């Protein structure tokens, strides 16, 4: 090869193709997304974050949390629960249909068991079945008068571990600027941390000294986000309730700086709590806060 300009134009052409393919085209495909109404929650999703959350995101960026935590839940597939909601006018037929459905799914359903299921409606008569089985079973119940529905169950280790109810999709990241999805899991995934760990005090303690709440945590302590100060006339309302080795000296208290409070606000804003068209699942109302708090240590 002798012509420098030929080389130049060839390289330029390849570069332009690569740029069109991975910068321009994704921008057309993904960049035009907008909020969408989700009927299960009765409002548009996602919502724009408030200023405190945005400040918290900045602290998250500065502290380098993205180096160890991801914000993306993966899903390997779906399974389905089959639920009998109504029996209809022909219970004898439905009994035989339930027995037949059991045979299709490879389980033995006795006459008594079928009767019991019909007596306790709604009743889940098949659990975690594949799409093919579900289709075949639904065919059996067609025109039988009974109402049978299939509940969608997302599958995958992240979901089994309790990190979220479904996989994350493009829509979840609409207001993530910059996008802090992360590439490495040296710490747990945080995409849904605002739902599964929803106690601000727990997060503040965790940031001040991770091992004060998670015994074997390898996360570094972010003590610079807190002030250790003498207790004034009255203790600060934000002071951390630390115990044992992590408690401050007598007469002192650990008070979070505004950056720590903003960071916790940001963490609590990270929620995947409703289905979307691309990632459906059987939606139920969130559990009360107390129940979630009890699960905190386990979820870590």
């Amino acid at each position, binding site marked *: 090869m002798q012509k420098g300009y030929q080389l130049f134009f060839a390289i330029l052409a390849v570069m332009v193709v*690569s*740029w069109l393919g991975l910068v321009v085209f994704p921008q057309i495909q993904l960049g035009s997304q907008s909020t969408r109404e989700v009927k299960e929650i009765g409002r548009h999703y996602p919502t724009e974050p408030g200023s405190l959350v945005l400040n918290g995101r900045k602290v998250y960026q500065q502290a380098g949390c993205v180096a160890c935590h991801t914000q993306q839940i993966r899903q390997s597939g779906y399974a389905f629960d089959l639920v009998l909601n109504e029996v209809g006018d022909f219970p004898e037929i439905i009994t035989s249909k339930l027995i037949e459905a059991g045979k299709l799914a490879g389980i033995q359903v006795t006459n008594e068991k079928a009767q019991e299921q019909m007596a306790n409606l709604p009743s889940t008569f098949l659990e975690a079945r594949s799409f093919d089985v579900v289709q075949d079973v639904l065919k059996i119940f067609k025109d039988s008068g009974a109402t049978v529905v299939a509940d969608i169950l997302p599958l*995958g280790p992240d979901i089994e571990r309790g990190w979220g109810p479904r996989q994350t999709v493009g829509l979840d990241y609409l207001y993530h600027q910059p996008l802090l999805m992360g*590439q490495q899991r040296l710490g747990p995934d945080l995409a849904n941390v605002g739902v599964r760990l929803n106690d601000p005090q727990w997060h503040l303690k965790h940031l001040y000294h991770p091992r004060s709440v998670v015994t074997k945590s390898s996360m570094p302590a972010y003590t610079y986000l807190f002030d250790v100060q003498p207790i004034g006339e009255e203790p600060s309302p934000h002071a951390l309730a630390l115990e044992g080795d992590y408690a401050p000296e007598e007469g002192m208290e650990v008070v979070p700086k505004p950056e720590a409070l903003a960071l916790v606000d940001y963490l609590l804003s990270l929620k995947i709590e409703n289905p979307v068209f691309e990632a459906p699942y059987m939606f139920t109302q969130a559990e009360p806060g107390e129940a979630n708090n009890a699960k905190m240590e386990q979820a870590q």
Partner: protein
Amino acid sequence: MLWMTMRLGQVKLRGPGFLFLGTVLWNIALVVGIVRLMGGSQSGYAFLSMPGFVYTMLFTAYALIGGIMLLTFFKRQDREIYPSQWFTYASIYWFPWMLTAASSALFASEPTRGLAQAVVHGWYASGMITIVLGFVGIALLQYLVPKLARRDLHNSNLSAFAFWVLLLFGGFTGLLQAQALPAWVGTLSGICNAFVAFAWIVLTVNLWKTLQGTDTDSSDPFALNLVRLAALCGLLGSLLNFWGSRPGVAETLQFTLYLQGIYWLQLFGFVGTLLLVAVYHFLPRISDRENISSGLFGWKAIMVLYVTGSILVSLVYVLGGRVQGTTLADGNRSFLDVQSATMSFIRISTIGELLVFLAAAVLVINLAIRFVSYLVGYVVCCLNCKNESAQ
């Protein structure tokens, strides 16, 4: 790269003043960027982590450096363009275009929104590793092997084939599957990784054929062995990247140390080693001093420490990533289990990182000694000249 441009083109450097200015500006931009990073101003994008304005400074500096390189190239006396030059020029052209496109998409007043940011960042990261830095390494490989082995490259057509395959497909790699991205992105990335691995096999065969039976002829067997090792790291990196991007495997290895291990293989094991060998090869020729390799702070010590450290970190991360991925894929195991399975690998990798740090420290001492001896020599020379003129 400039040395290669001048040597292969048989031409003198054009505009050294602009080059100096560009280099100074580049280093200022880097120092500013690192200081801001340490102050907490991270952008959040792993491969563009410095604040946005630093990239404008880097681009300006690079325009001066790259411009001088191109000017020197176009003024070359030897009109033939050698394989190492193809890779050099692709790297020179690609970097500013890619930097401009990615930084304007991510840091502009109306930046790319949502998930599209991940694709732009992934495109930039794969371009940096496979094309910009990867091509610098391959250019050095194609230059150093014939020089050290004292024979011509086995087949330049094989080099040309590898060049075009890497250029065509290298820019689409590095976006692992199973993210929340559209499925086509991961599939495209996996296919392109296969092409890149194939191009690397072709490159390796060409170099292997060139090196066959040259052990006794080599001008510097130590440097040649390091070049071999670097080439092996490059090949292994591309093969592991391909293996890790296959459906079924990608899902397990995603979010693990495995990807970091490949980065270490490609950037430190391959490109870094070749850059060190290049300086080791060029420095005596530039400074007219033969003895740079011996002694406690010599180049051999630096390179042995560096290569050992880099390869140790790479392999430990790759193995650790596999273990981490397998544990992560088991939903019945708690995350603390995943952490404890990974922690021993991270501890071992620290030894490797310490060796690389030690190599860098020895390099600084070496350069300081060299600089002081140069200054002393310069002063002595000036004094001698003064005495002679006085006599």
